[in-house]
């Protein structure tokens, strides 16, 4: 059945002398076997690289973290592991810095994620209008996404500067006393959340916009025939129509919030950065993990913090599931 295209594709040489039937049969059998091997095996070969790299550099470290957390390991002597069972966990539980970091991570997580996603929803709705320069507005809202954590944090650190920062100058112009953004707990957390909100609102808005554009037009038509106002259409057609995208962004933002590291580190301007301020007033779990491992040289305790972060995420998703359950039961 071989055609000339086959030969061109498979890179075969045209046969020289006509072969005997027996030879032909074995050749055909061999190529049939190869073909079957190819059809069965190739897909696995194609997906293998992803799984191999993931297993080596993500999954294995994650599992091994729990093993390290049961040991004392010094940064200087990484090969010496001393078994201490659950001592690290007991110490962490009794460590006020851990509870402080946990609380900061949660509060900064909430005040950065909630406004961010609400604003993204509004922005997506605006971008969904038919208008001039729509591409400009879309690209403009992605500019923060192109800015690195480091660059964004540096700029906002300056904008929130106590003595000559733009925010305090603007507050002064309307007669409000300057705020000590870095030293006071709540202002510092608000400032750090601002960096997160600025960087991710536009990106999330584009995800929502994509989902909004996939909503069938007849749902809007049906709603407007029922006499639903624009606002009603938004709350009863648009928002339910992009529900799974909203869940997806909540999941991603939650994971991101747990990992918060670069923003508070740079906001602290050097020596204050790792401890999250002079009184740890904005130290997150990510910063605590780094401080334990790379400033106090206790890798075992660092791994314990990492594992606690993982547990926190698991708990968050279990809680989400439970809330969903209860909700569906009551409605």
């Amino acid at each position, binding site marked *: 059945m071989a055609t000339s295209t*086959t030969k061109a594709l*498979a890179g075969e040489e045209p046969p020289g002398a006509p072969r005997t039937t027996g030879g032909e049969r074995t050749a055909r059998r061999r190529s049939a076997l190869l*073909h079957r091997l*190819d059809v069965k095996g*190739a*897909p696995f070969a194609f*997906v293998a*690289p*992803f799984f191999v*790299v*993931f297993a080596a*550099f*993500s*999954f*294995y*470290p*994650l599992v091994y*973290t729990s093993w*390290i957390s049961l040991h004392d390991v010094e940064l200087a002597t*990484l090969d010496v592991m001393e078994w201490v069972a659950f001592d690290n966990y007991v110490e962490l539980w009794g460590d006020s810095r851990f509870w402080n970091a946990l609380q900061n991570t949660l509060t900064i997580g909430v005040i950065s994620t909630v406004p961010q996603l609400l604003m993204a929803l509004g922005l997506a709705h*605006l971008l*969904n209008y*038919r208008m001039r320069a729509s591409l400009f*507005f*879309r*690209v*403009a*809202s*992605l*500019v*923060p996404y192109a*800015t*690195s954590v480091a*660059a*964004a944090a*540096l*700029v906002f650190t300056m904008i929130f500067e106590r003595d000559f920062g733009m925010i305090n100058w603007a507050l*002064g112009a309307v007669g409000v006393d300057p705020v000590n953004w870095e030293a006071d707990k709540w202002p510092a957390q608000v400032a750090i959340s601002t960096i997160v909100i*600025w960087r991710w609102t536009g990106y999330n808005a*584009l*995800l929502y916009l*994509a989902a909004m*554009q*996939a*909503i069938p*037009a007849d749902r*809007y*038509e049906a709603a407007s025939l029922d006499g639903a106002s624009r606002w009603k259409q938004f709350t009863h057609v648009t928002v339910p129509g*992009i529900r799974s*995208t909203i869940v997806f962004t909540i999941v991603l933002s939650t994971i991101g919030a747990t990992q918060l590291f*670069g923003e508070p580190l*740079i906001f602290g*301007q050097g020596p204050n*950065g790792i401890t999250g301020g002079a009184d740890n007033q904005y130290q997150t779990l*990510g910063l605590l993990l780094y401080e334990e*491992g790379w400033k106090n040289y206790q*890798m075992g305790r*660092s791994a314990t913090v*990492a594992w606690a972060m*993982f547990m926190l995420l698991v708990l968050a998703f279990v809680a989400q599931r439970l809330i969903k359950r209860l909700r569906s039961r009551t409605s």
Partner: protein
Amino acid sequence: MTIHSLPARTKTPDRTPAEKPVRRRGGRRLLRERAGRQHHAGPLAYVLLAVMAVLSIFPLYWTMVAASTDNTRVSQTPPPFLPGPNLFSNLARAWDEAAMGKAMINSLIVAGVIALSTVMFATLAGFAFAKLKFKGRNVLLMLVIGTMLVPPQLGVVPLFMMMSELGWSQQLPAVIFPTLVSAVGVFFMRQYLSEALPDELVEAGRVDGAHSLRIFWSIVLPVARPAMAVLFMITFVHAWNDFFWPFVVLDMTNPTVPVALTQLSAGYVRDQSLIMAGALLGTLPLLAMFIVFGRQIVSGIMAGAVKG
């Protein structure tokens, strides 16, 4: 108003997927035809969008302003709103003092290699998940999606140990290897190829007796090209801006751009316009990319979104 008096360019008749021509160029196919009903934007919508655009762009504009003045001017009140004369001298200082030159080259290598390998492996895996039948396909795909939920930072301690054992501490491979693949990339390519690659093309290749790699090379790659370009850019942005792991594993003698930027601001004496010049320098390459390929990046992010 009769049908005939309508403007001619209302709507092209819907075509079945089979007769849709496969576009080979440009990322336009990634932009979905809109389904939701579109109202025209009123003046209020324009005003709000303009405010959003200003809020998005202003911090970067101000980075440029601060980078172009000197320290005494930056720390005056009211703050300067217009660029000063020192932009290029400050950029030159940042390039020299903050190891920015080396950092730029490092970041270029890291982001380039990561983006290339991510695109290659994502296209291979995405093709397999989209068009090939094999045992456990759905389970493996669920596994890929599940891996998106594992934050890479949690394995940072063992990863650090692995790297020092391999002798890669402070070396670029330590940053490159853990991010050679991306679950989001695999998922994105699968979504794209499911829609853009007709089954008939793959079948035709099979009938012609081509083996899978050959089909991938001659049939899949040409179709996947626009999506590959978009994935390359998005991965490049993420790799260029990645902070936590490079900060942990690299030191100041061999930094990537974000790591070098922390060095700028870590001192007790703060040279604000130098810091801002560094921040601007580190952002410029990506900004240039966004200005040139903005449309493709926007449509790529939207194509990769979960819909519904």
